[in-house]
């Protein structure tokens, strides 16, 4: 999906738990997520801290979209 959207000329940030898979599949902007069962959150954290984790992931993805890259890049 990431590749098809980029083929249409829209940059994609792929938030992905196992970044090696994202690299193999060919995403260009890769943002490491938390874990396979809960990529965008961490249920073990108190709600306040978890909200921060989620907010930071989105911020990182937005920053990745605004960054010029020459090759596959992991925004960790």
């Amino acid at each position, binding site marked *: 999906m990431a590749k098809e959207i980029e083929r249409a000329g829209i940059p994609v940030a792929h938030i992905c*738990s*196992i970044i090696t*898979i994202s690299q*193999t599949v060919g995403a260009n902007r890769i943002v490491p997520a*938390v874990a*396979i069962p809960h990529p965008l959150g961490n249920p073990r954290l108190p709600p306040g801290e978890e909200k921060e984790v989620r907010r930071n992931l989105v911020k990182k993805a937005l920053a990745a979209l605004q960054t010029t890259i020459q090759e596959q890049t992991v925004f960790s």
Partner: protein
Amino acid sequence: MSYARPHAGVQPVTHLWRKIPVSDLGFSSPTRLEDGKLSIDIDELTGLLQSDPNVREARLAIARPGESVRIIPVKDVIEPRLSLIPGVPVFPGVFSAWNPDVDGIASGEIVSLSGMVVTTVGSIVGFQEGLIDMSGPGARYSLFSGKLHLVLDVTVREGMGRHDHERTVRLAGLKASNYIAGSVMKHPPRTDIRETLVNPESPGSPASPGRAGGKGKPRIAYLYMLQSQGLLHDTYYCGVDVKTMPPRRILPTEALFGAILSGNCVSACDKNTTYHHQNNPILLDLLRRHGTDLEFAGCVITNENVTLGDKQRSSTLAAELVASLVPDGVIISKEGFGNPDADLMMNCSKIEAHGIKTVLLTDEFAGQAGASQSLVDTHPKADAIVSTGNANEVTVLPPMEKVIGDDRVITTLAGGSSKSRLPDGSIAIELQALIGSTNQLGFERLSSRFK
């Protein structure tokens, strides 16, 4: 870690495997084996299983090869076994505390009933449980179609969560297996097939040969990957949930007495049931060929986790443990599909980084037409792969006269869909819904061809 008891010196641990053939099953009292026919006291076994307060009802049924029977949804398949090894129970760590590293494992005998299995079914717990057909086209895809089945259809008490449900059914299967093996061995039959399996020397022992051996035979190690992602994708080693433990070496014959068992309710086609672990053909072939055309360097078990950090940590540790066995080459088998492909590639590339060759066993999810990318992760070092088939391939299974379990779940199994039911009562379903069809330990005959 020591494999042998301290006083055993450098003698390798040797296990005599006695296989008692079972040629038919029936219900009558008492539970006994006569002329190859296993009779089961249905009241005694049902009473034993229902003594667990979590079991509301346990119904027993028999299925034989060639019958028009479908068993669905299958949770586990177990071969009844008994350990005659002093101090070593079968399914160690499950019904009694057990720590193989304290005293080591002694030589001795393992007894198994061959030709029959205990199969557990019940209302669906995980969405990827599967089916066994005892005849018809589905029977081509599973060794289990050729076995006699004592099927336990277990209903648990109401309101029970999925994990407790899975555990209750798992323990019921193991209890039934122990009950049958124990009952038969009260009057051990004279007919049996015997095989002696000699484990490799513990690495570092004076008798352990060096790499590319003094004898010129290749040293081959085995990295045995176990699915352990939680969410009902679990495997247990000596009663310990594998996702909570680091990779470790095991004595290869430990698998024979049930040290590794399945609590895995997913990925029907490529999950390892307890039977698969008990009879792992990679381990058995390496043990049988040890000292003839190759030296078996040893076995390391490792897990498949849900975070990148855990995958990286386990693969680094697994590669170091494998390298400590000083092998020339390593066989790696995977369990499950999808993200475990990433574990497989990390294990492969990190072992290759030690200068050791690898060969990988994996199935493929290449789409129904077989034209899609078949693994979600790859690595340039993964250049020797044995494929165990395309799990997305569709097969049509005719209706069976009898269903043991509940076949209403067929459209919700992974591999099935709302379109699975055909007007004539057949089902069109992907191989992934058939238990063990693309097993990655090499049990079945499927493979894939590159066009």
